[in-house]
């Protein structure tokens, strides 16, 4: 071991209590950062997965312009051709077809203008969690025709329940009047009020007849095996699916484009968290700054002697920075390691946030959140602590470089 390293390590143990306290502050900050960042990223992933699996899927194939205008005539004419291509992509977990039409939906007492969605009940169950969210009645099955699933808040508003009838009145794809009567088979509650307030789902074959879709659909809704596969799949598909067989432009939209509100919510949460993290790191940096200023003030005489002996100021600077680096590294490794272990434990056991269940319901999540340890969450926080604390140690270290030996030796 080089003498400089030996001296740096021994100097750290000259004031063991102070060193331990500073090291603990660094370790604690690193632990908090690893755990909190993992918790946040884990909850975002759960939030996205829960939210998109209720309705939008990880990504959708649509006719160009449909997402913006929701125009009935912007439809994919031959969805099965696209389905063949989707079947070839291994990382696509499932897909389903949907068609939508704005309609007036009336019960005996009330009428409401909402989006009626035609779904393939069997395929839908693979893509969305709606089947599991049915609270009253039953989910649709493949043989159903004039049946409907409606959101709990819509049912409340229309004052209807299971087995009640609803009249649908809208406009078909060809511009004709689309009208039909459906019986409520099930009522679902996703926890997302906006969805539960304005959703009615009917079998796709019935929708096809009522809205004169001629086999076309508006959305091919897909889920990927992992959220992290979405970008790659959508790029691959976008290159492949330029136009459908009737020459209409086709686009592939990922969840960020389909649910921009969710992205904004995540960004907002992340920004406020980052502000908190920065404050935490700055507090630790001041603690380091204080420790090293104290250490250097206490050792001014010693530094003066070393300079008198012929030690170059740059070597002293190196020594002081090594002390800072060793302490910070030790704190970051201990704290980061403990944070990673803690996160791993909670990754298995989950964190029960019963008190926040109402908020979590908004995103379709249960009350238990599982943090997710990743390379970013494990290294970003401790890395930032390391960098900032080393910068904080630079100021006192540079003071050493400016010492005049004779003056320094005279100091008490």
């Amino acid at each position, binding site marked *: 071991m080089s003498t400089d390293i030996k001296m740096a390590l021994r100097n750290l143990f*000259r004031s063991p209590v102070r060193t331990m306290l500073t090291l603990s502050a660094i370790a604690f900050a690193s632990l908090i950062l690893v755990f909190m960042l993992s918790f946040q990223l884990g909850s975002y992933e759960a939030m996205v997965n829960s939210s998109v699996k209720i309705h939008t899927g990880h990504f959708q194939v649509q006719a160009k312009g449909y997402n913006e205008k929701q125009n009935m005539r912007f439809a994919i004419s031959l969805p099965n051709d696209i389905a063949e291509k989707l079947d070839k992509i291994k990382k696509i977990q499932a897909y389903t077809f949907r068609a939508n039409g704005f309609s007036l939906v009336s019960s005996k007492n009330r009428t409401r203008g909402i989006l009626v969605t035609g779904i393939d009940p069997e395929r839908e169950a693979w893509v969305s969690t709606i089947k599991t969210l049915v609270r009253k009645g039953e989910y649709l099955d493949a043989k159903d025709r004039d049946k409907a699933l409606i959101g709990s808040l819509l049912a409340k508003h229309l004052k209807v329940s299971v087995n009640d009838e609803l009249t649908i009145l809208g406009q078909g794809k060809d511009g004709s009047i689309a009208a039909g009567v459906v019986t409520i088979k099930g009522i679902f509650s996703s926890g997302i009020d906006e969805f539960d307030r304005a959703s009615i789902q009917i079998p796709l074959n019935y929708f096809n007849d009522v809205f004169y879709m001629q086999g076309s659909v508006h959305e091919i809704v897909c889920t990927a095996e992992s959220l992290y596969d979405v970008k790659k799949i959508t790029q691959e598909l976008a290159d492949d699916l330029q136009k459908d067989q009737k020459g209409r432009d086709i686009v592939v939209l990922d969840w960020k484009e389909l649910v921009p509100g969710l992205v904004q919510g995540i960004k907002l949460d992340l920004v406020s968290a980052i502000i908190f993290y920065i404050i935490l790191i700055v507090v630790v940096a001041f603690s380091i700054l204080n420790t090293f200023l104290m250490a250097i003030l206490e050792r001014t005489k010693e530094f003066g002697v070393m*300079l008198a*002996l012929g*030690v170059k100021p740059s070597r002293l600077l190196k020594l002081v920075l090594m002390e800072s680096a060793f302490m910070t590294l030790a704190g970051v490794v201990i704290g980061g390691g403990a944070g990673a272990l803690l996160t791993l434990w909670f990754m298995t056991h989950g964190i029960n946030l019963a008190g926040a269940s109402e908020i979590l319901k908004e995103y379709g999540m249960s009350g238990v959140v599982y943090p997710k340890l990743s390379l970013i969450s494990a290294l970003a926080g401790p890395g930032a602590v390391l960098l900032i604390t080393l910068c904080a140690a630079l100021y006192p270290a540079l003071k050493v470089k400016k010492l005049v*030996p004779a003056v320094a030796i005279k100091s008490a």
Partner: protein
Amino acid sequence: MNIVNAQNIKKSYFQGKMQVHALRGMSVLVDQSEFMALAGPSGSGKTTMLNIIGGIDSPDSGTIVVDNNDYADMKQSQLADLRLKKIGFVFQAYNLIPVLSAQENVEYIMLLQGVAASERKEKAIAILDDVGLEGKYNRRPSELSGGQQQRVAVARAIVSNPAIVLADEPTANLDSKTGESLLDMMKKMNQEKNVTFIFSTHDNMVMDYAKRIVKLKDGQIEEDIVKEK
């Protein structure tokens, strides 16, 4: 041959708001292998002069040449190099590096000079033996008495055969017996290795040992006494 040539050195500093004239145009020539004391009461300028000779403080005016190196032409890093290779320091308060053992303290100067590890160890042990610290190589300064610490400091100062050793009141914190033994040791080094010693002191015992005494008063030489050989 002059190892130190100081001409018309002036130095003042502020103590609070008051300006103190530590040296008022002092000139002195020191020959190689002298055993010399700068004597005088507190505030006479002896430590300031020693610091200026050692290059750890700079004069306001005047010229200082040590071992043919004119400090006026030298940068801080060159001065550091000169101190490392040509000048040894012994301080009143020993000032050993507290986290290093006796042997490591002595080796440290050689380490900075780039001496190989095996040679460093050999020389450090030999010189510690010479100053009477056999078997205490691994003791940290806090585990040594004042006299022992000062012996380590002397060993550190002379281990790399400097041209000159500057000792600032080296016996001030020692009892007379320990001080005497330390002076004996330094005198032996002076005689055997021709190392120049310059002391700042107001200790009569040091003055008794010195072959030349330069008495200072108010930053000027009051008397320059060369004892008969």
